[in-house]
Structure formats: C-alpha cells, structure tokens
C-alpha cells in the first residue's frame, strides 16, 4: 500500500495493489501528456491554416505580375496610337493596321494565359456557354440557332469566365417577341 494518498478522494478509500497504483499513476501522466500533445497539434493546425490563408493572399497579390508586365507593352502601344491620332496623321489605313496589331497582341497574350473565345454564331444555343438576350423569327435556319453575338464570350482554361450574349432564332411567332427585362 503506497503511503501517499490521492489528493481529492475525500470519503471513499480504495485499496489498490502497489502495481495497480503505479500503473494508474503512469497512465495519468501519459494521459496528460497526450492531451497536451493533442492541444498542441490542434493549435499547430490552426496556425498552419492561418499561415496558408496569408500565403494565399500574398500569392494572389503578386500572381498577376506576369500578365501585368505583358500588359504594360500593350499600354505603351495604345499610348503611341493615341499620340499619333492626336497629331492628325492622315494615313488612316496604316493607323488601323497599327491598332489591329495591338489587338492581335492582346489576343495572343490572353491566349497564352488560357483564354479562348466561345464559339457561338451559327451554332445551336447552348446555355452552358451562351446567354440569350433576345430571340428573332427566322424560318430559314434551324430553331434555337445563334444568329448574332451581341457580346463575345470567353473561356479560361475551359471554364466559362463570361458567357457569349446572343440573339437566338425562333421558327414561328407563336410566342410573342420576348426580351429580358
């Protein structure tokens, strides 16, 4: 029988074999060790989560650096076009050619970042890629064909970033001409 009594057991006295007592004592120490370890792991997890969130924010702040750098060239080119237009240069075809080159450059840049235009005109309307703004009667072509693109749509790495806003054909005027509010 161990001589030191457990502190908080007031009334009931339990008799234990020394081995049992030692085992219990060891278990209690272990338990508090484990508990501390769990708390620390949990806290570590929380802190890691916070750090990841911060990293993500930092990353987002500078992730656009590449595209920004390339956009600066386009900005310069557009500036040059404006300067030239202000000087009232008369060679309009050459000016147009320059602006077209800038446009092509911007288009190539976006392509490099995985941006692709959504095909629409002449295709059957597909709500996964197209957004219908209005419909027009047209008996010549199949119903639900996109007859006009009002705003081009784009995909970013196969995900829609902007739908193509389109005008869609309808065969007969059974329904009234319907517009979005």
């Amino acid at each position, binding site marked *: 029988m161990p001589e030191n009594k457990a502190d908080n057991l007031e009334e009931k006295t339990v008799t234990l074999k020394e081995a049992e007592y030692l085992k219990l004592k060891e278990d209690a120490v272990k338990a508090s060790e484990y508990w*501390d370890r769990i708390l620390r792991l949990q806290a570590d997890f929380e802190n890691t989560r*916070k750090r990841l969130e911060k990293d993500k924010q930092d990353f987002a702040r500078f992730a656009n650096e590449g595209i920004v750098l390339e956009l600066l060239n386009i900005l310069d080119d557009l500036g040059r076009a404006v300067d030239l237009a202000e000087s009232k240069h008369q060679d309009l075809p050459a000016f147009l050619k320059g602006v077209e080159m800038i446009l092509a450059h911007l288009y190539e840049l976006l392509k490099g970042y995985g941006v692709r235009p959504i095909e629409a005109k002449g295709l059957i309307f597909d709500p996964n890629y197209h957004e*219908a703004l209005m419909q027009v009667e047209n008996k010549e072509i199949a119903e639900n064909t996109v007859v006009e693109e009002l705003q081009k749509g784009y995909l970013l790495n196969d995900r829609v970033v902007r739908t193509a806003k389109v*005008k*869609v054909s309808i065969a007969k005027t059974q329904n009234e001409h319907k*517009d*979005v509010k």
Partner: protein
Amino acid sequence: MAKIIGIDLGTSNSAAAVMEAGRPVIIPSAEGAGVASGKAFPSYVAFTKDGQRLVGEPARRQAAINAEGTIQAAKRKMGTDFKFKAYGKEYTPQQISAFILQKIKADAESYLGDKVEEAVITCPAYFDDNQRTATKDAGEIAGLKVLRIINEPTAACLAYGLEKAGKELKILVFDLGGGTLDVTIMEMWKEGGFKVMATSGDTQLGGTDMDNVLIDYIANQFKRDTGIDLKNDKMAMQRLREAAEKAKVELSSTLATDINLPFITADATGPKHLTMPINRAKLEELVGPIIERCRGPLEGALKDAKEAFSKEGVEFTDKSVDRIIMVGGPTRMPIVQKFVEDYFGKKIERGVDPMECVALGAAIQAAIIKGEVKDVLLLDVTPLSLGIETLGGVNTKLIERNTTIPTKKSQVFSTAADNQTAVTIRVLQGERSMADNNVELGRFDLVGIPAAPRGVPQIEVAFDIDANGIVHVKALDLGTGKEQKIQISAPKKLSKEEIDKMVKDADKFAAEDVKKKEEVEAINQADNLVYATEKSLKDYGDKVNQQERADIEARANDLKTAIKDKNIERIKKGMEDLTKASHKLAEEIYKQAAAKQQQAQGAAGKTQAEEPQEEPKKKEEDIIDAEYKEEDDKK
C-alpha cells in the same frame, strides 16, 4: 464520418456550406462564379423542349428564349397547391426546389469527395407549418435527410456566433436580398436558443430595384447629352448593366468612380462613347427612395414585437435591440447600413459576408446537431504579440498576435559586445516595433556566458505558451548548456478595449515606428562595420601602407562619432566612406587568401578551384541578425 451540409434555399439565389476543421465554408457551385456575385447560384430551374433539365446559371441564361419552360422563385409558392407547368408536365413547388437541392447535393459531393446524405435547410421566419413541411419534402425528394429546418435569421445569428454570448439578447435581423426584404426580431435565451417575436417585410423590394434606377439614370443622362436612346440597343444595355453593377459595388468602398464604355453606339456623326463620373452621393440620392421603403416593414416589425413581448410581460422599445444583423448583398451598401444604424442609434454587427451568413449558419447548426461542435477543441489565441528586446531597443516578435495556443517558438540570438558574459531577456507584449512602447511582462538575466567576440555565442530563446495561457520563457546558451527561465502566469489580463487600443496604436504609429526601427538598424549596421573594420585592421593592418591605414582609422572614428550622435545622415555617409576606404585593405586580404588557397590547391587538383566558393558566412545565417542589448548599454 459523412458530412452534413447547411443549405440556404433562397428565393433568387441558393448556396450551401459545410463545417471544415471547426469552421463553416461555402461550397462553390460547380460552374464557378456566376452572375450572382459570390459563390451562390440563381434559384432557376428550366426544362427545354427536348426534355433536358437545367438548374442554376444555365437555366437563367436561357430564360429569355424559353419563358414557357423556365421556373424561378418557386420558393414563393412553397406550401401551396400551385403547380408549375412546363411542356405539358406539372411540377409542385417541392419538386422544383428538389431539383435545386439535388444540384447542391451533387456539387457538395464533388467538393467533399464523399457522399452527402443529410442536411439542414433554412426558411424564412414567417414560413408556416405547411411551408416548412414542403421545404422538408423537397429535401427528401432530392435524396437528403433533412435533420432540421431552421429560420434564416437564426442561421445568420449562428454565423455571427451570437449563441455564445452567454446572455439574453434581443436581435434584429435585416435581410435585404435581390428581390425581397425580411425584417425579423428575435429573442435569444442565455443558453443560446432563439425565438422569433415578430416578422415583417416586402416581397418586391431588393437590390435589383437599385440596379435598375442606376441604369435608368445613366441611360437618361446619355440620351440628354447625345439624343440617343440606348434602351433600344440590347448590346449597349448589356454593357451598361454590367458597368452599373460594377460601379454600385465599387461605390461601397470608394467615394467616386467612372463609368467608361467606349464605342457604346454610333450615329451619323460618328462613334459615341459613354463616360460618366458617378459618386456615392449620387448613387445614394438615386436609391434613397428605395431604401426609404424599408422603413414601413421595420416599423411594423417593431410594433408587432412590442406586442409580443408585452404578452410575456417584457417591455420592448426600439432601444431594446441589443444586436443588429445584416443579411443579403445590398446590405453591403454604406447607405443601407447607415439607414439601419441611424434608426436604432446602434452599430451593426460586422465580420461575416452578408451573402454567405445564412448558409454558413446552417452549416454550424448541422455540426451542432451532429455533435461536431462540442467535440471541436476551442482553443484561444494570443491577442497580442510576444517578443523580446534586442539591440537598440527593438522589439523582436517571437509569437505573432492571433497565434492559436498552445504554441512554442524559438530563435537563436547572440551577444552585442565582445566578452559579454550576460544577457538580459526582457519579455514584451505588444505590436509596436520599439521595445519601450510595449508592455514588459518580465525580465531575467542569463549569466555565465564564456567570454567571446560578439556575435559568436549562440543563445536560444524559447517561448512556450501552454493551453492555460501561461508563458514560459527560457534562454539557453547552446555553448555551455546554461539556462535560465521564467514563467509568466497571468500575462497581463488586458480588457478587449486595451487590446484594441494597442493594436490600433501599432497602426497609428506604424510610420513613426518604422522610421525609428530603420534608425536603430542603421546604427547597428554601422556599429558592426566599425567593429569588423577595426578587427581587420588589427589582423591585417600591416598589409596596407601607413597612409591608407591612417585614412581607414580616421573614417572609422568619424563613423563612431556619428553613431554616438545618432545622426542618421552622417552615419549613412560615414558607412559609405569607411567601406570605400577599407576596399584597399579588403583587396589585400583577399589577394593573400587567394595566394594561400592556390598553394594549397596546387596538390588538390584543378576542379575544386573552379567551384564557387562556399560562403564563409553560411553558419552564421542561422543566427538572427539581432542581438541583445547589454544591460550596461542602457546607462
């Protein structure tokens, strides 16, 4: 364990959330962000002529050409006998809602990579039993076991953590969505249960109305200026709608913005551009009448609440409202917040996205039911950073504020002077960069460090905050194994106000503090330079001529005086001069070293010589470039 999701089944938009590692997160819709901002998707269901079923964004996109087969706002019909008709087939409101819930279930399963079978769904506080049963049925049709239907305002309160307040609260929930306004007054018991006391609202009032007045205004201005009516031009109107929505959002955080739509249209005279500055005041003037329409429902709810409370023998007035919770995208607008705050003379609760809070709260409710919340260990965070004072009176933080405890962090420091045998550890609490602007929690000395040149001894300082918030600080001389520690049992129990003040002060004095810290750093750097130069002179001084040596010494002395005077301009200049003057010395040292090396490598072979030289400093990099200030330095 399978997750339970929380679902905000809304009239115009729906969203879902799930508990992840103790906090609710919104489950993104599979199509990515749609037109409806945030991660919600429009509550649209459509059937096409060829029998396809569309839900969410795709359904909305084809609404204009398929009015017959497109259904929206099915929630308004929940609990009625109404039947939606599409291509000869009939659907109950429950069935339509079930299609939306099915999409949510599928999105959640693909997000979580696991089956989802149970859910908590929210509904407006005014829903009657019929409507609630219909909502539950919709869940069951979708293959979800609905564990509970909870009120949207209750979910919003949970998202703000109000149930943990531990006291009775009277809460106003102001929910202004895309197309509806719901005002709810609730009572929360001490234990965290909620009771709805009164509800009121307007089913035809919301953010869409605000967009429309702005669009009308811009289009009318343009017509006045150019004579062209954009309303007949679908494409121009589409561009205008997008630009107006963007401007509205921007004006919540800035006071002025521009609408810029080049080549919006053209007439015989040439291309026309729409450019219009618009400021917050103008927007507020335009939406003012719409916001004013919120007053009626607000007053109605308060009046009803007064009656309901009086039945319980409780007196209730406008001043009785303890907390105000805002729900819905339009409540992000400062004018909407101001309207409510002015009405009650009380600030609204902040910190949770008003578009997400209902779904987030539903997810919290789900976790409470599942017992997850109880099992989650609620760990504290350190409200303020903990650090020690280093050379020049700088506060070097070891544990940043908002770190979850228990946590441990250690760093190796060194001495600031040659033959320094003791260091003083001042334990600091606070955000300011200079030590003296923070609270000192305690200090102790570590003595018996063997005499060595400065920067050589390695002293590891470890901070350990245990689960009870007790801070243990230990300093260990890695050379001798000598250690000293203290325990700070009650790290200054500061009130929330005091903590806020300290954090705010850090922001307020940030520029000043940075400047001071830079000064100290310049002094430290200069001091190091003088020390290194003098050491080199002692070791290699005979390698340069008398004149050069004298020059270096003079420069070093100049710099020393500048350091003493703490004159930053002169210190910077002095460092430049001294560096320049010592170049000759450095050259000589390296010449000799190279000669020695070549001799040594003559035998070792060529390859090694071509390899880049190992940085001799490598070892020291582990030592943070901040050193203890000697106690004596202070005097």
